[in-house]
């Protein structure tokens, strides 16, 4: 039994938008009944979001492609009436273009913003994993074919040897919106997380980078440590977004420093100067 799934590795996505454009090529101007009406302008069935974090000059940029998540607990199905949204045996969630006519609630029900309203045709629509192509013998949707870095991989979750299962096993799996527990068929690697970073400078040696300084990050639950690199930079990755931390720096011969890094703090704590204690 085939059960389709997709893995998107955000760390490999370069934000080239090939997935978005090739999706448009496949769907613009063509109805693919019974699974989809033509995709009009303004609808991104795979929407690539650019996330910029940090501040000058310590910035990270991530691109997060978001197609329909094809949830096992699909809110759109719950919102639909008359069987307008259904799940195929292979797991793909389909909006029936005719039965869904007039049902705007299908659009607003989706917590991912992945369902769009077609004003002209009075119908909701979204990504189908290119079901019309799969049914025609294709192995993958157009977006997967066009991805130059193999950041998007598609295949049969029930086949242990499938590429999608191999890739899923490589890194921790994440859901886009884990708290919703919609059981999506789309999983992610390396979704962008909160980080904290900065540069440490020794007050009496501002012309040299402060290398190898120990930095500790604490809150009630955890203690993380790192040391500054050759630029005097430190960073802590993958932090809880709503945790309040205390950052402390102790270095022999210098006055210790403690900084609060609350959940609302900038990710880049900037340049932190350690004054000589003597």
């Amino acid at each position: 039994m085939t059960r389709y799934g997709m893995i998107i590795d955000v760390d490999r996505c370069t934000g080239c938008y090939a997935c978005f454009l090739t999706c448009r090529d496949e769907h613009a101007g063509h109805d693919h009944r019974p699974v989809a009406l033509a995709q009009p302008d303004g609808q991104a069935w795979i929407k690539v979001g650019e996330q910029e974090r940090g501040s000058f000059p310590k910035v990270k940029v991530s691109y997060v492609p978001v197609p329909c998540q094809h949830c096992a607990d699909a809110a759109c199905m719950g919102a639909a009436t008359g069987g307008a949204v259904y799940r195929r045996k292979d797991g793909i969630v389909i909006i029936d273009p005719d039965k869904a006519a007039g049902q705007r609630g299908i659009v607003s029900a989706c917590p991912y913003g992945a369902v769009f309203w077609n004003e002209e045709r009075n119908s909701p629509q979204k990504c189908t994993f290119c079901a019309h192509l799969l049914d025609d013998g294709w192995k993958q949707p157009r977006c997967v074919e066009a991805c130059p870095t193999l950041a998007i991989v598609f295949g049969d979750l029930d086949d242990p040897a499938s590429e999608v299962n191999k890739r899923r096993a490589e890194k921790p799996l994440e859901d886009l919106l884990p708290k919703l527990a919609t059981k999506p068929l789309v999983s992610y690697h390396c979704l962008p997380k909160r980080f904290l970073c900065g540069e440490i400078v020794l007050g009496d040696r501002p012309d040299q980078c402060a290398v190898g300084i120990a930095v500790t990050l604490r809150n009630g639950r955890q203690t993380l440590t790192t040391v500054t690199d050759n630029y005097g930079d430190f960073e802590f990755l993958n932090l809880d977004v709503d945790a309040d931390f205390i950052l402390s720096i102790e270095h022999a011969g210098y006055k210790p420093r403690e900084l609060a890094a609350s959940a609302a703090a900038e990710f880049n704590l900037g340049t932190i100067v350690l004054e000589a204690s003597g």
Partner: protein
Amino acid sequence: MTASVFTNCTNAGPISVTVEDGKVTRVRPLVVDEADFRPWTIEAGGRSYSPPKKFNVAPFVLSERDRLYSEDRIKYPMKRVDFDPNGARNPQNRGKSEYQRISWDEALGIVSGELQRVKKAHGPSAVAAMTSSHHNWGLVGYKMSAFSRFFNLIGHTQVLDNPDSWEGWHWGATHTYGFYWRLGMPEPYDMLEDALQNAEMIVFWSNDPDSTRGVYSGSDASIWRQWLKDKGVKMVCIDPFHNYTAAAMGGKWLAPRIGTDTALAMAIAHVWITEGSYDKEYVKNRTVGFDAFKDYVLGKEDGEPKTAAWAAELTGLEARTITALAREWAGKRTVLSSGARGGEGGACRQAYATEWARMMVLLQAMQGLGKPGVSIWGTSMGAPVDATVWFPGYGDLQGRMSTSSAARVIPENPVAQRLYRPILPDAILNPPINWLGEGFCNRSLAQQFTPFSYPMPGCSEVKLFYRYGGSFLGTMTDSAKWMSMYQSPKLEFVVNQDVWWSGETRFADIILPACTQLEREDIGEWGEPGGQTKHGNSGCNFRAVVRMQKCIEPLWESKPDYEIFTLLARRLGVEQEYTEGNTDRDWARKFFELSDLPKRVSWEEFERKGYHIINAPAQRKSTPALRWFAEGRACDTPDPANPKRGTDKAHELGTDSGKIEFVSASLQKAFPDDDERPPMPHFIPSWEGHQSALAAKYPLQLLTPHPRFTFHTHYDKHAHWLDEIPGHRIKKDGYAYWPARIHREDAQRRGIADGDIVKLYNDRAQVLCIAVVTERVRPGVIHSAVSSAKYDPLEPGNPRSVDRGGCVALLTPGRMLSKNVAGMAPNSCLIEIEKWSA
């Protein structure tokens, strides 16, 4: 409904085109039999690296169907309403007046009549013809082929291109390490393997290969950089903009002020010299002039040691950061990735960019350029490639209808007079003018010093201007000058032959509608320009020669360029000489037959499949670029144009000394006293930089690098799907604006919020953009890419009008990058920015 699938090749990748009922319904990256792929393997660090079996076209190619049927297509021959070839011509209304549809018969009659009239009255030198940058692909349709054959046949003043994407390398680096036959860019051979096996760090310096994509090779190299990142190779990005490669690679970002990269390079050299952390043996045996350079860096020449503290003041970086970078660079096997092919960033397209490009070579010389992991490599060429199978590119004489032995007779242009693209408007408006070098100088180092003047003695000033493909309003500098040129009565007649309406189109008197390459016959190899970029195909994971098939009939009343020139040749009485009886498909076959392909595949088989893949050989001997030089051996790379290869000087570089020259012998000979490109590179403050007096009025520096989602204006405006990519254009109130990125502090100071419409302005122009407030640019720098195809003046016909289309090139200075260097310098540009209220 019956579907047919055709093959074609764009300037950024091969495609399969599905046609149903005469209409293109799908455009995919070329689909081939899986068995045709035999991927290469690189062994490194206990892992095997092989590319995926597919073709990664540039993303904009996936909007080809949208572009094909664009409402922006030039559908019919057009005449400016107030142009009368037999009466009032009203050149002052070019850019303003509307057009009326006319028949092909009338259009061809006017164009051929004007060609004859001007030629008879003033001689062929009064006709100037000019192409765009790469507006299509294929050996038949490329600009040097059908176009050049026609104009060489009838005679014309050729408008020479400048090396607009990599100026500093062409006019500077050549005098340091040769490679003039590659226009200043180093050979690329086996650099991917070398990096995977040996590199510990990559310094991307003013280089964004994830956006420039090796020019033609699509996104094939993106995965190479992922491999290098996954291996843990340390990444550094030096660029005032945290560019897209930096976004993908992470690592350390250093953002120097525009115009100060050379100072940063000098300070790095200072650290290495004072700490002794350079390759002394290499410097002794493989370079000349180091002592003088050392004296300059240590301050013995001018009393100013080029310390990290000195550079910190100029660059805005911390001295400690500069020192740390220099130390890490000396301590690790480091690839210097300073250009897609050794060019293309902002640093090589600004005032005195020769100095920076030369310093890039010299820094790597100090670390042993050519030794394992020590290279100048853009990261977008240099995959394993079968270089023994020859197929011509457009840069090869054999790859052009105008110069190939595919033709029985090669027409010689009888006109010796030349014009030069970046100063074309100056030449037309204010002759006489003089300049040095004919743009692409691939025959010798001294070729750059050839003096040109316009008008040339015995030649006429230009009266008729024939413009072919694309728009320079979005790519050249101070491009309002182009509009003044067009509105001058000196140009009695202007033709524009193109596929789509672009900014420049409506400055013509007659517009001829050409069709796309999906509507005609051709042949071409993906990513291979040949000539001075031989083996550019090593930027692709598989060599693919494509039979570019006519997928549909030309739309509306458009015609193939070759047919348009054929019809004009008929009216001028030279049809037979032009075509030699060949159709476009006949020419494609002739190119096929003179290549190595017939040894591998029959024409019939090639026609049937539509492509032929040339896999890298399973057993191959690696010949890394410049390893031969570092090791004092004869050149063993397959670099066909290296003039010393196969001679008793084969171990030498293309400089006069055969070594890397800290003090250039060729510059010493030609311009010993030039203080703007001295024989040895110096840091010279920019003539329009943060220290200029003008900065008091216009305090922001404009960075206009190559764009990510358009290519020399192509695809922008005509494929409106792209307008939904926020990095490309952003819609506000239904209008797709060009983004200008501004740092949060600069925006706050001016009351500008993200998404505001803003006016970028200086004394040259005013351009409206949409503000993107970001942390990805250095404060004091505005980032807005060149290559908008859309010129949308609020007052059509007024060259000084506010432009809403995003042609930021209008703002950039027309000044040449230094007094003896006729290269353009768009990134030396001061502006101010304010919220726009109409």
